[in-house]
Each structure stands twice: as C-alpha cells, then as structure tokens.
C-alpha cells in the first residue's frame, strides 16, 4: 500500500494574527508553525493502516524551506520519506496542481489531505487533486479501514454517518474522528527522522487564478456589560440609550 499524505505548514492555533505589506501578507514573525490538525490526524491514521498491513507513507508539502521542521515532525511520527515542492503555497488550484504533478506517475493507492487547512480554510485542495488525477474524491473522512484494495470509509453527514466503499486509488480528505488523537513522536522516531529522505522538487509553472487583495481582522469584541438578574430597569435603559436596540 502506497499512501501520500499532503500536509500544510500552518500557524499554531493560539498564534496571534497580523499582516504586513499593506495587509497582503501574513506576518510569520515569532509564530510557531504546526502540521495542520486534520492532516496530522489523517497522517496518524495512515500510519496505523501501514502498520496493520505494510507499505510506505510519503508526506508532501508545498512550501519553502521554513516548512521543513513540521515535515521532520511528520517523519518523526513515522512517515518513510518526504517531498517538498519548493515554492510558496498560493491558492488551492496552485497547490493542487503541484501535488498532482508529483503524484501523477507514482501510483499512490490513497492520497490524504485534510478537509481544510486551518489557516486559509479553503477546503478545495483534495477535490482538485482528485479531479486533476481523474480519481475519486471522498470528502470529510471521519474513519477509514482497508480491505485488500478497497477503502471502507465513514463520512460524517448531517445528523449521522455514511459508510461507503471505494477501490484504490482515491483521494480522501480527513477530518476529526479519522484518528482519535494525533500521534506524538517518540525519541526513537525523532532520531530516525534525521536519516530519512526529504526530497526537494521544483514547482511546475502555473498562472495564479486568484490574487489576495487584502486581509482584515475581525472587529475586537466589545466588553460585555453584566447586569444583576433583578435589575430589569437598567437592562431596558442600556438597550434603549446605549445599544439603541429598542
């Protein structure tokens, strides 16, 4: 079984968000980067599938050299090798093109992405990769087993779950539930990760289809005014005079 797990290098969920260059570019200064959580869960499940059967797991990132620490973490978790497409990740189509280019002649049985990266939340890359490779796309995978060359997949749908089967090869975008918790690299894995191949490939040319005009931050939440439960008069006064809601 050959599995490709596409991981993106995203700001830690607790990172402060700010922008530079006329609000066009995210400010990476003093920000810790992590593997996007849905992809980390997908990688964890991929490792379990490989350990239960056999095979290889490759992780792929479209990004510059500063993405390598999170790729090393993926190798420390147990991936066999890594590929970095040496370019800044732009919009979803650009990233999908790069992934498809790497994957097209490699015969991966399963290609995992996350259902979305937690920075730009595009939720498109997996589906686009599947389309470019002309293979099935299964979104919101919240559980997966493999029997022979068939994936037995659970998808989360409104109010319940859907069980489906799909022959290799396919693209699955993982979400919460695909593995209970991300695997934590052990010391042995961290040591071994150093010796595993991290191959760098150059990007294919592709014209950007979209351009970022600007970023804006949500308005700061205003302070919450607490009113004692029996002070209805004050509540009405504030709604009328300050909030001007009534």
């Amino acid at each position, binding site marked *: 079984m050959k599995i490709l797990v596409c991981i993106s290098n995203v700001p830690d969920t607790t990172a402060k968000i700010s922008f530079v260059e006329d609000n066009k570019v995210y400010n990476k200064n003093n920000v810790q980067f992590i593997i996007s959580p849905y992809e980390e869960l997908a990688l964890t499940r991929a490792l379990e599938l490989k350990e239960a059967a056999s095979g290889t797991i490759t992780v792929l990132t479209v990004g510059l050299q500063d993405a*390598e*620490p999170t790729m*090393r*973490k993926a190798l*420390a978790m147990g991936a066999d090798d890594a590929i970095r497409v040496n370019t800044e990740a732009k919009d979803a189509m650009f990233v999908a093109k790069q992934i498809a280019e790497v994957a097209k002649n490699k015969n991966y049985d399963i290609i995992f992405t996350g259902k979305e990266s937690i920075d730009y939340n595009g939720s498109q890359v997996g589906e686009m990769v599947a389309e470019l490779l002309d293979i099935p796309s299964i979104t919101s995978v919240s559980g997966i087993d493999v029997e022979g060359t068939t994936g037995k997949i659970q998808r989360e749908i409104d109010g319940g779950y859907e069980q489906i089967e799909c022959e290799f090869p396919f693209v699955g975008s993982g979400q919460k539930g695909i593995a209970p*918790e991300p695997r*934590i*690299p*052990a*010391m*042995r*894995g*961290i*040591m071994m990760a*150093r010796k595993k191949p991290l191959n760098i490939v150059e990007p294919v040319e592709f014209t950007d289809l979209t351009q970022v005009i600007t970023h804006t931050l949500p308005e700061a939440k205003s302070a919450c005014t607490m009113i004692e439960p029996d002070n209805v008069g004050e509540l009405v006064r504030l709604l009328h005079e300050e909030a001007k809601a009534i």
Partner: protein
Amino acid sequence: MDFELSEDQKLIRNSVRDFAEREIRPLAAELDEKQQFSEDLTRKMGEMGLFGMYLPEQYGGQGLDTLSYIIAVEEIARIDSSQAATLAAHNSLGIGPLYYYGTEEQKMKYLPQLCTGEKLWAFGLTEPDAGSDSRGTKTKAILKDGEWTISGSKIFITNGASKMSLGSTVQTVTAIDEKGRKEFTTIIVENGTEGYKGVPMHNKMMWRASDTAELYFDDCKVPEANLLGKVGDGSKIMLSTLDNGRLSIAAMGLGLAQGAFELALKYSQERKQFGKTIYSFQNTGFKLADMATKIELARNLLYKACWLKDNKKPFAKEAAMSKLYCSEIAKEVADDAVQIHGGYGLMKDYEIERFYRDQRLLQIGEGTSEIQRLVIARYIVE
C-alpha cells in the same frame, strides 16, 4: 554565542510537552492523593523513549545529548514532579552508574531492559545515619568464597520498591583500615535475591506518586562478579553519579517553576477583584515579572552546564550551581504562585497546591542546598 535550540531539541520539547499534557496531567492529582505509583505511566514514558535517552543505541538508548534529556525532564516536571522523579532518578542514578562504570557484560545484561520502561533501577547511597555525610555509610559487604555478603539498610531510595524495580547499585563498606578509614565499594544487587527487600515508604509530603523505598540487606549474598567498578572506588562512583544527577534535579526545579508560573499567570488573568483582573494590578505584574526573570536565569545556567557536559568540558561547578539555583527559585516561584492564587491556592482542587509541596524536596534531595554551596565554594577557590 548561539542560544538557539536545534530543530531536534525543539521537537523533543514539543513532543514531551504534548505527552505530559495528554497522559500525565489528567492523572497527576489523583495519583498524588492516593500515593499511587503508576506502572502504566512509567511504561508510557518508556514507550516515548524517555529512559536511556543519552545512552548509545547498542544499549537500547536513543543516543541523544544531555541537553535533550534535560529538556525532557523539565517538560515532565512542568506537569508533575512525581513522574519527573521516576524519570530523573532512573536515568541519572539508576542507569547512570551501570553505564559509566559497568563492564560490557553488565551493561548488556541490564541496560537494554532498563531503557524500555519495563524495569527500573535504584541508587542505594543514603542511609538512616548517612545523608549529607555519605562516608557515614554502615552497610557492609564481605567477600568470601566468590560471594559478597551484604548487611545493612538504605533509606529514601527512589524506584526501589515497586514491582518494576529490577535491582539497585549499593554503596558498601568493604574494609576499615587501622586509622578507621573506610574502603567503599559499589555492588549490584538484583531484586529477588535472598535477604534483599525493598519496602515502600508512605506519607510523604511531596512526590507522593513516585516510589520511595527503604532497602534491607540481611546477609544478602551476590556473586563476586556483581562488583561495579573497582574495589575501593565506590565513593568516587557514587559522587560522580551525583554530579550528573544534579543536572536532572535542576531540570525538575526549572520545570516545576515554569509550571507554577504558568498556572499563576493564567489565574491572574482570570481572577477579578475590585472590578478588574488581578494581573492588571502592578503588584501582581511585578511579582510575575520577577518569577519569569528567575526562570530565565535558571534555564540559562542549567543549559550552559549541559552545554559544558556535551562539549566534554568540566561541568561539576556549574551543575552544583544549577541544582542550587533551580531548586531555590522553584521554592520562591511556587510560593509566589500560591500567593497569587490566594485562598484557592491552599485547596487541593488547584494544581498549584501540589506544586508547592513538590518543590520542597528539591532543596534537600541529591545533596542539600547547603552541600551544593560547599561544592561550589571548593571550586571557586581552585
């Protein structure tokens, strides 16, 4: 000067932190309350590869540097001192002497199983009448017909009584000359040897989920080949082991201080008095600023001592300074953290209560603060 940790060291810190938050934090208070040593958590620390981190791979270790190991102890102590004690004592005091002074045969026999987290090893130095004065050791060993016969007892021995304990390294007196000078020799004693037993000690103020034992040797016979190092080198072996041990006790102080500081910082941003968070009062901000500064100093000193060791330079003075400073500031930071918590800090429902108790060993165990000052004073006049 390069203060940047390597990518591997950063990954080790993050991984051990994630492990401690996920596996240890939810259990720490209950294990402390019940005085329960956790075999399960010990095994999990073994699976993470935290035992034998600095040992070469042929003995089952991870081949990592001292600083990586110290970061791991710091991160466990940031969450729970009891588990950090199991980890630090086993690595520095249990595995240490076997690795540094064992024959190849002894190393191959014991070290691989001590690196997995299945078995632990104890360091039998302290006795009821031999604490800071380790030369007061009374436990004696007599060599006759190819066997050592050991009699005596040890006290306050970490990892000496649980079912996971595989044995201990024991300092014994093997001769006394006409002037009353003792010859010290270290001997390996395996659990299950007739006449040897480890008895758990309960009702501790701190580290209540770590295994502390009294060891008894009642005409306990072991083969002559269980000698560790040379006859007469016992004291040297035990004291050099303590030089290394100081780094990990220091890491426990640093980690505890970091954990206590974070608890206090968080609480101060949530707790409101006089209509605003207590953090916004300058008095609280100043207190937290002092705590953060002490922690920064402690970390720089300890990491420098590790750097000296990793670069094969003398580090004993800096190790003693680190042990002294990190354990002293652990006390001060934990005390301030309780003060910031106010009345809630006195309740077991709040983690800081356990941190406050746990720090108190650090100025006593593995050489008191006074002994550290004695060691430092000797080095600074050389």
